[in-house]
């Protein structure tokens, strides 16, 4: 089967300007505009990249392939996303294998998500809000203003800085990438699959509330049985059930419907 790594127009281009990058920083603010549980930020991520992709892929088939790839599951921290955008744009420009582009995207989104959560939600936000709230709680109007100035100075300087940094990093690394594309794709896939394994264990939540009563003994199925065998067994099992059904040819819409029925139905029956 032909893979989609082939481009109709495989000639690398160098068309992305600083102005384009800045424009896409603003578009990245809509990363979560169409957030949903199936693809999370994918459609918003694609929205951010559109001006760049349009400029790079003048060929319609190439543009369509790139857009289709970028509609795949995506989730990262909304402030650090511009780093990945810059990196990916430089790779799109040099017409890297689509497989390599995907692998780099998946390998970077998870770690940056984790760093971002720790850096912004658990550090920067409490600090900025703490300073603001200590003023506002005395009825001082400076509270909200100081908060907004502090927080957004950090927010926007990082978003712009990371976009350019990501792009320049990508451009510099591209000669190395080109020489050993297959091996880079292979290496990136190793990181990517490790990340997906970790994501399955941390993002999917599913546990049973069933308690088996045998005489006087009560056995909580989740805590006493399943967790003893392996924690996160149900999330892993469910992910592979979905994988299996997908391979069987079921559409993702059907899988979502099944998930809603299992979630609501299972809860109504006091199973989960």
């Amino acid at each position, binding site marked *: 089967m032909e893979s989609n790594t082939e481009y109709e127009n495989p000639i690398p281009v160098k068309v992305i300007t600083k102005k384009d990058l800045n424009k896409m920083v603003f578009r990245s603010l809509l990363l979560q505009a169409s957030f949903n549980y199936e693809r999370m930020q994918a459609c*918003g991520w694609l*929205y951010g990249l559109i001006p760049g992709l349009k400029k790079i892929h003048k060929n319609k088939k190439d543009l369509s392939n790139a857009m289709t790839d970028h509609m795949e599951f995506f989730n990262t921290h909304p402030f650090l996303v511009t780093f990945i955008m810059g990196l990916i744009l430089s790779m799109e420009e040099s017409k890297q294998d689509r497989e390599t582009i995907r692998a780099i995207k*998946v390998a970077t989104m998870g770690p940056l998500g984790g760093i971002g959560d720790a850096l912004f939600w658990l550090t920067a936000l409490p600090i900025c809000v703490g300073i603001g709230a200590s003023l506002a709680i005395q009825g001082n109007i400076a509270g909200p203003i100081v908060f907004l100035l502090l927080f957004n100075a950090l927010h926007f300087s990082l978003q712009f800085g990371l976009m350019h940094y990501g792009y320049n990093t990508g451009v510099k690394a591209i000669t190395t990438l080109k020489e050993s594309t297959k091996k880079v794709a292979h290496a990136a896939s190793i990181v990517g699959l490790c990340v997906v*394994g970790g994501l399955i264990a941390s993002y*999917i939540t599913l546990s049973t509330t069933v308690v088996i009563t045998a005489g006087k003994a009560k056995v909580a199925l989740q805590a006493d049985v399943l967790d003893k065998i392996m924690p996160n067994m149900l*999330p892993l099992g469910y992910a592979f059930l979905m994988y299996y059904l997908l391979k069987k040819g079921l559409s993702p819409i059907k899988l979502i419907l099944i998930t809603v029925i299992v979630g609501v139905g299972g809860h109504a029956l006091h199973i989960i």
Partner: protein
Amino acid sequence: MLISALLIALWAGIAGIDLFDGLTHIHRPIVTGLVVGLILGDMKTGLITGATLELVWMGMVPLAGAQPPNVVIGGIMGVAFAILGKLQPAAAVGLAVPFAVAVQGVITLIFTIFSPIMHKADKYAAAADTRGIEKINYLGMAFLFVFYFVIAFLPIYLGGSAAASIVSSIPIWLISGLKIAGAMMPAVGFAMLLKIMLKKEYIAFLIIGFILVTYGHLTILPVALVGTAFALYDFFASKNRGDGSSKKEVMSDGI
């Protein structure tokens, strides 16, 4: 009251969008306190209640996609009730939190409803229709705006008690059930990634990532670092063996 309720609803719509898009954080209670206070003519109470609510919500942030009680509606309701009902800030917090939890439940539902729309987006992507992709994102934001507008307008216009009884009439099993379904939903996205990326030689690394989080309780960054260690070893080992480029990879699951 109508004008005030409309203005507050407008603010709720804007703040609701900012919670997900823009993220300038004008949606935080500390800012909402000032704005709603100005609309209702009591800036001082607004600021103080906003700051109090802020301290409650400080730790409630969207970690790893999990939705905390809705900070936008919680902030707006808390401040509005404090000023309109002449409540102490702490009592306003008690009133605001149930609203915030109910809204969080509905947001979970919205994120579920938006999943099928992604298949429309897939079609646009396949047709290289950039306008279509843009429209879906604008639609998402417009939807959120209307949702927050209505949710904020009704309780303030109708009064807190009427709104509270509406909230309590939604069966809890349905809201909790949808929440559980929402928490399972990423499995569909991961399955789609696996369908594309998972080849036999990579299964080992999927297991390693899973084990590191399940038993090692590691976050994603260290997991990626372990993956990078394997990747680096593999990269240089195959380079030294010199078989990296000669081995033709067979696509087992091409698309």
